[in-house]
């Protein structure tokens, strides 16, 4: 059984559908990379899972099974136990996520004490151990530092120490390296991989950078305008992408002959308030067909754990696309 299983998740902000019919699973010890551009709904998906979507956003449909229980129906008190102890979090901006007037050690101790995993007296030594685990030099000294005294890379290490404090089986990392320089990013990615092994973690890694996915993820799900349009094992997706959007993203990474034109995806990311009819990628798609405007394509299972939502790859046996239920406006 999968550790986390998200089924038909739907999150709205008023009339805007930020997450639309999103389904995926994360198995034990696996890293799923969730990749997409700004506004694709990848962060809202993560916040929906732990039920921390900002007002006026609301999770209006779907199920989120974590260790067999549907998180969307849990009482808030139990949900609070899940956050931290069941699912750890690493955010993009460690400076915004850390309390500027709390020492590093207090952040980690708080997590341990709240979840009843340490007394006040031994929380400090546990915090030092965790700082050592995330490879912070001189942890006995750093434990008394304030967040502003740390570099960006060190702050992200502290975030990881907090996330790992209660030994959660799943960690969600939302753009953990985006604000960092490339050499620091490499260190943090190495550390993530190592922590995953050492703590037997499953990881939901949210990023816009396919390079980060290629280095870290086992499987990848590609989001566009609120939906997952393709998912599968990372090698399969990188070698044999099926959705024109995935192909475009991979092709637009500079890497061909120097000075040659890059393959660009024309147009711009659509505004959620003005989504085109049918497939939302349609207007930017080089393979557009008449059918693409009829309805959003359903999921086609391509085998080998690879699935796609595109009329280029109709489900076997289907002649006409099944129009999905029109969302209530």
């Amino acid at each position, binding site marked *: 059984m999968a550790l986390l299983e998200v089924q038909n998740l739907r999150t709205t902000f008023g009339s805007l559908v930020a997450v639309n019919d999103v389904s995926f699973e994360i198995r034990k010890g696996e890293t799923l990379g969730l990749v997409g551009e700004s506004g694709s709904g990848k962060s809202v998906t993560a916040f929906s899972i732990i039920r921390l979507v900002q007002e006026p956003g609301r999770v209006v449909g779907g199920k989120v099974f974590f260790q067999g229980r549907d998180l969307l129906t849990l009482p808030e008190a139990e949900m609070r136990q899940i956050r931290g102890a069941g699912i750890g979090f690493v955010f993009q901006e460690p400076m915004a996520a850390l309390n500027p007037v709390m020492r590093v050690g207090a952040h980690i101790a708080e997590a341990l004490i709240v979840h009843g995993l340490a007394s006040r007296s031994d929380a400090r030594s546990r915090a030092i151990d965790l700082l050592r685990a995330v490879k912070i030099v001189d942890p006995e000294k750093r434990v008394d530092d304030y967040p502003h005294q740390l570099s960006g890379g060190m702050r992200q290490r502290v975030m990881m120490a907090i996330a790992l404090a209660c030994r959660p089986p799943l960690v969600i990392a939302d753009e953990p390296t985006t604000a960092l320089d490339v*050499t620091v990013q490499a*260190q943090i990615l190495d550390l993530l991989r190592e922590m995953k092994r050492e703590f037997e973690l499953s990881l939901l890694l949210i990023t816009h950078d396919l390079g980060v996915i*290629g280095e870290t993820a086992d499987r990848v799900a590609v989001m566009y305008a609120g939906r997952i349009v393709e998912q599968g094992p990372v*090698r399969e997706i990188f070698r044999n992408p099926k959705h024109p959007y995935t192909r475009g993203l991979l092709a637009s990474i500079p890497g061909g002959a120097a000075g040659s034109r890059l393959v*660009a995806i024309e147009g*711009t990311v659509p505004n959620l308030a003005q989504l085109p009819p049918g497939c939302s990628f349609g207007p930017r798609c080089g393979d557009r067909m008449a059918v693409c405007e009829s309805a959003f394509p359903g999921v086609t299972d391509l085998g080998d754990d690879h699935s796609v939502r595109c009329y280029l790859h109709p489900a076997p046996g289907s002649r006409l696309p099944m129009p999905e239920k029109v969302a209530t406006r």
Partner: protein
Amino acid sequence: MSLVEVRNLVKHFERGGGLFRAKSVVRAVDDVSFSVEEGETFALVGESGSGKSTTGRCMLRLIEPTSGEVLFRGENVLGFSSSRLRAARRDMQMVFQDPYSSLNPRMRAFTIVEEPLVIHDLGSKSDRRERVADLFRLVGLDPAHLDRYPHEFSGGQRQRIGLARALALNPSFIIADEPVSALDVSIQAQVINLLMDLQQQLKLTYLFIAHDLRLVRHISTRVAVMYLGRIVEMGNTAEIFANAQHAYTRALLSAVPATDPDAPRARIELDPALVNREAPLRQVSEGHFAAV
């Protein structure tokens, strides 16, 4: 003669200096020299704090350097009077990183692109309108949107507005400071293609300031790697990527995430203690210099 030649550029910022604290000096740009040839794309790469943006800004005197020379077509820009400098800036323009903060939100796109023409007192009102419409077409914007405000454009379109403004005075030299790093991945390629097309069409010379090595490898002819205010390695792009000599360059190259999941991962970590900051650049092969 090189189009632009930077000689021993230095920019020191003084910091602190309170009641109980002595002033300290940050050597943001520390004796930097390089030259940019007509028609090429010269890339300055490095991480945050390496001094690459400060170098670019000093070259246009958007900030005043502490010392050094910046020769543009053989004349030292740093010695220009303010009126002479204004005239010179017609030929050297800048494109900024963030298309959200670099465009005045209260000005219409037309006014933003027209502004350089007004400042240099060029053309009549109707001439300028026509010129701005031409510039819109040149950068792939629809002239029907001339009177819109910046917030009505997407990030990629805003960067095109910034580019149209930079091109308004027909410059020959453009400093592009991280021109695509704030854009979505699928939009970056569009803007990069546009930059390359314009270079061909208008015979532009670029100084391209960036941290994305994949991009630099793709578009630049030569590259200089900056580390803590100094150039530690410089040469033809292909040569630098294939045959890096400086420890920092090697660490930087090895940190670029591979998009091939099966690519061997050989991370090289930099031990800052092993970098000799005082080592001068010396030639290691034809046109390839490294501070080793």
